């Protein structure tokens, strides 16, 4: 990665590990100002919409992504993860909820049986097959990540699209609508994301839906600011002038022309957000705000349960943690490669 990849803030004062953390989780750990700068840069890219040969931005970016080994690795990791999440539960050797081997666990004597040929990852503290639980947990994790990101994407794009259209349609009323929406969005963006998520989750009470909503809420301002910026950048494009010169209505230009051209950066951000969503969902579950139902294994909850038995069976923390790390890593690799492919400044 080129030094350009770092925001000015990150590049100057920060130490190396902090930089790494910034990159691995998209926007996490950035100051609100740096967050905005990064989003705005991504939004600007919507305006660079074709190269000299006339290939579309999409085709060009796709070609570049395919040549990037990091992107390919990310894509493969994700593909495996999605496969496991979808078909894994049908293939697991045992039911993830069966406590058929509970008699082998003697917590009083600190005995939780480890890996064996019957139980590849061993048993958990309730005597359930850990391997089956990890595999089935992948589905929950994917579900939370995808639903939360979709929620944030939907609401964020509605807000951002509304603000962007209002701005593009112009007039004093348009600017007012845009201003009002963006003031709220920037306020949300300035809040530390985990604090926001915990507040939302505390309001709603612990459940899987709570985690999805809480994690979705924190990505709302990200998508809103991105789409709005992207639409405004597109608004100056020549095809907008050309369509206006033929009398095409402003609403139609905003929705039929500007919006579809503004989506590339949003797509990139969605990939990056999936990574953070998975981490944040795990964090909320870990804090006890997730699904309390033990029948549905989830990596974050498994991690919490395992942590109280860290001395007895440290391996029980490793499985879900590695699962979370690998998945988030896959989304981040692919997302960063896509961002790089879109941004001429980041190309090597």
């Amino acid at each position, binding site marked *: 990665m080129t030094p350009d990849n770092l925001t000015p803030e990150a590049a100057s004062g920060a130490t190396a590990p902090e930089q790494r953390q910034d990159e691995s989780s998209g926007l996490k750990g950035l100051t609100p100002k740096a967050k905005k700068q990064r989003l705005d840069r991504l939004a600007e890219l919507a305006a660079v*919409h*074709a190269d000299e*040969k*006339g*290939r*579309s*931005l*999409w*085709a060009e970016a796709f070609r570049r992504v395919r040549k990037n080994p990091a992107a390919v690795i990310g894509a493969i990791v994700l593909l495996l993860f999605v496969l496991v999440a979808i078909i894994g539960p049908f293939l697991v050797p045992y039911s993830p909820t069966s406590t058929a081997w509970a008699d082998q666990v003697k917590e009083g004597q600190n005995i939780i049986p480890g890996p064996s040929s019957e139980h590849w990852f061993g048993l958990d503290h309730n005597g359930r097959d850990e391997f089956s639980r990890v595999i089935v947990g992948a589905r929950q994790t994917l579900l939370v990540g995808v639903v939360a990101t979709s929620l944030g994407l939907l609401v964020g794009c509605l807000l951002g699209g509304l603000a962007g259209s209002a701005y593009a349609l112009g007039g004093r009323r348009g600017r007012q609508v845009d201003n009002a929406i963006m003031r709220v969005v920037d306020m949300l963006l300035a809040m530390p994301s985990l604090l926001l998520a915990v507040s939302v989750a505390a309001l709603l009470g612990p459940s899987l839906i709570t985690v999805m909503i809480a994690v979705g809420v924190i990505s709302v301002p990200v998508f809103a600011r991105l789409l709005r910026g992207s639409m405004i950048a597109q608004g*100056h*494009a*020549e*095809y907008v*002038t*050309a*369509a*206006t*010169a*033929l*009398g*095409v*209505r402003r609403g*139609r230009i905003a929705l*039929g*022309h500007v919006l*579809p*051209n503004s989506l590339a950066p949003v797509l990139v951000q969605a990939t990056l957000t999936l990574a953070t969503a998975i981490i944040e969902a795990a964090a909320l579950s870990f804090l006890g705000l997730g699904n309390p139902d033990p029948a549905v294994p989830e990596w974050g909850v498994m991690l919490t349960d395992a942590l109280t038995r860290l001395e007895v069976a440290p391996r029980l923390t490793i499985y879900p943690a590695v699962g979370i790390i690998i998945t988030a890593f896959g989304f981040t690799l692919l997302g960063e490669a896509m961002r790089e492919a879109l941004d001429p400044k980041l190309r090597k």
Partner: protein
Amino acid sequence: MALLEVEDLGVTFHADRDVRAVDGVSFAVDAGKVVGLVGESGCGKSVTSLALIGLLPNQNTKRVRVDGSAKFDGLDLLRADRRTLRDIRGREIAMIFQDPLSSLNPVVPIGVQVAEVLIRHRGIGKHEAERRSAELLDRVGIPDPRRRLKEYPHQLSGGMRQRALIAMAVACRPRLLIADEPTTALDVTIQAQILELLKELVREDGTALIMITHDLGVVAGLCDSVNVLYAGRVVESAGRHELFAHPTHPYTVGLLNSIPRLDALRGEELTPIRGSVRDVLAWSAGCAFAPRCDRAIETCLTGPPSLEGTNHSFRCVNPEVVP
């Protein structure tokens, strides 16, 4: 009465310093006629045409002042309200831009872009619009129009893209077409084809055309009358034959001498106008062309020369020939 009568059109951009990009330009376009606006890059051609249809960036705000009048069929375009203008654009007046690639939306199929103009102004359904779009593509010489309708701009060649844009512009048979350097971005061989197409279309439909170009060669084959612009003002205006037979303003003569000619003797050199458009004088101080003019005399710097003559007018105190 002329179809379009532009009277004293002026455009001032209020930025760090004020830029008077167009300064008292007057010309008329009769129904079915082709009028050329000619001049080097930066002389105010695009600003003139955009001002006419109300599409200058920030037009009607404090940052841009537009004065004068532009009567289209009696309606002053510069003072028309937004709604009226929006109905006129595309239906009565249509515009073709220089760069066909960036003028088309890269992620919307060609067919949708053509059809939306028809749907907007003709109030027809999607299906009917698609049928007519295919006819239009056929009319502008795009082979296999049914298939092309579904393609995206990057799948078409430069010439085909410009044809598609022309199809969009003539879709509603406007009475006036404004073409802003429609061939500049194209290969030479394609340029001739596109000019031929434009000529044919306006003749068949009886459309008036404002042809904007920096190339007097384009004007020679197409225009009925010509206005030569320099630094935002008309410096010479005449019928095509008159202009080519008796070029009067030293700038026009300079432009003519810099056109490559097929009948030129081998080894004969083109004589480009010396200096560049950046060497302009403010019109208030004298003739803006004086820093580049071989015929400049002292009187040229005593004040702005006025436009003389009626059928063949020119703005010069020491012209080459007096018409």
